[in-house]
């Protein structure tokens, strides 16, 4: 069996699905954040698979852009999570519910 475009797309879709389910069900802010990174990497895989399939370099370049943006997001996101931990000594996103009362 040769590994073709479809296999990569399915793999990426599965990764994206795992990431989105993780965002929905996990309660630890750090783990939720890791799941988002998983989603972004699934996107990267999709871009690169399509890029190879079409024989252009665009997708490879885009993957680098996505990685750079993800790094910038991680810097800000971890600072926000750290700040939240300092104020309430917990990383559980369900306990971040001050505004529901």
């Amino acid at each position, binding site marked *: 069996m040769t590994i073709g475009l479809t296999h990569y797309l399915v793999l990426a879709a599965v990764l994206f699905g795992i990431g989105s389910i993780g965002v929905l069900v996990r309660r630890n802010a750090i783990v939720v954040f890791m799941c988002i990174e998983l*989603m*972004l990497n699934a996107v990267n895989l999709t871009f690169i698979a399509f890029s190879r399939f079409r024989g252009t370099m665009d997708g490879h370049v885009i993957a680098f*852009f996505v990685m750079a943006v993800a790094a910038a997001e991680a810097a800000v996101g971890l600072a926000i999570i750290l700040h939240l931990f300092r104020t309430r000594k917990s990383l559980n996103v369900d306990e971040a519910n001050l505004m529901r009362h």
Partner: protein
Amino acid sequence: MEITFQASDLWGILPALILIAFASVAALMEVFARPDQSRGFIAGFGAIGSLVALAVSIWQWTGIEGAYQVPLFGKMLVMDAFSTFFNGIFAVGALLACLLGGRYLREHKADFGEYTALVLFAAAGMGLMVQSRDLVVMFVNLEIMSIPIYVLSGFVRKNRRGAESALKYFLMGSVASAVLLYGVAFLYGMTGSTDLVAMREAFDADKALGTSLLVKVGMVFLLGGLAFKVALAPFHLWTPDVYDGAPTPVTAFMAAGVKAAGFAVMVRVFAVTFGFDALEFGADGKGWVGLFYALAVATMFAGNLAAIPQVNVKRMLAYSSIAHAGYLLVGIITGAFGDLGSATSAATAIGGNSAVLYYLLTYAFSTFLVLAAISLFGKDGEEFVHISDFAGFGFKRPFVALALTLGLLSLAGIPPLGGFFAKFYLFREAMALQKPEMVWLTLLAIVNSMIALYYYLRVIVFLYMKEPTREVPAFESKGAVAVMIVALAAVLLLGLFPDGYVEMARRSVESLALR
């Protein structure tokens, strides 16, 4: 993808460059300021930067004639009347946010110059996002806009709600970015390009492409990501918490700026490249339109019905901003029925989309007017925004109460204020299509505007007709008064003399036609 660079391209992104330069200097000024010094001068510096950017946008606008579109950086970005129009809005938004922020942050013991820097960076990101012609460049600029706003929403560190607000906005926003990008990946795979014009050409060349499953999935993901950013139901659940927890000047900047940027991108993407004629979606192409109808109806009702029981005025405004997103989507749908390139339906596209632009313009000023007044209530990281806190305020501070009242009436769409004409223009364009389903959609939107009257007028009742129950700290701020005067003048001007601004909006949309 070919990236070329000419020095003349810099002229096209000059407003964003100015904002970035001023933002960088503002960040440095914070480092060199004495610890005990008020940071009001940094906010003032940011306001000057925004004014310069606004002046450049106006200057660029005067140079625009007829069908005007300049591709920049090898078709990565574009300068047209549309982007110049929005650059102007974002510069005004940054200006008002700087004026509003200075005193507010001092009262809340969060007086840091980074506020100004972040506001200007976000405004630059918004401008570049609207100028993007390539979806990946659009994504990068979306992040340049979003990342400063994540930080800003938790800027007052004494306020525990701020930290929650920042976390929620960050997590939801990142998911939205990932979803949007996944959509772009599929569209890239199927059309072989991320350039909006090349994508449209691919769709026109191969009609079968529009029916392919991966294209549909890609479009739905792209729409989902954008829907998150502009808070369309069912992707709106983050909005009340984020708007409520964020510092009020930031809430105003988000409601005015981020929403305008999101809808501007929606206009560029859906009306110009992926109009209803480009995609065969479901049986006889109706599915794509039906999805938009469902989103619009759900958004209007979700926003308005949830706003009714709110006693926290900022939460109420957050839900009302969701409802406004629903009305705006009606305009997007109207515009997407037309095609700027065709002789027969160009008028529809121009009408619907220019109504969206006009609505965004009035909405930006109306929300700034309302939130500038609300930002005065509070002290030391705590905001007093319960509806009963406004009781009896109408006679204590007549001008602020008047500004708040007129802002709420404009949001409600009462003549002669800007909000009324914006709604009138939007609904008239939707009715002009003479499609039964659009008539129904417009009727639902009008019903929703009436529901909205209830919760807007309730705040006014508290202002003038109720006795205060407790002492509420409300500070004086020259900056906020300046914001209120500017916004009030704009709201009245947009309501009484709309012709010139409608013409601007129409010219902006005309410049979008692909070439």
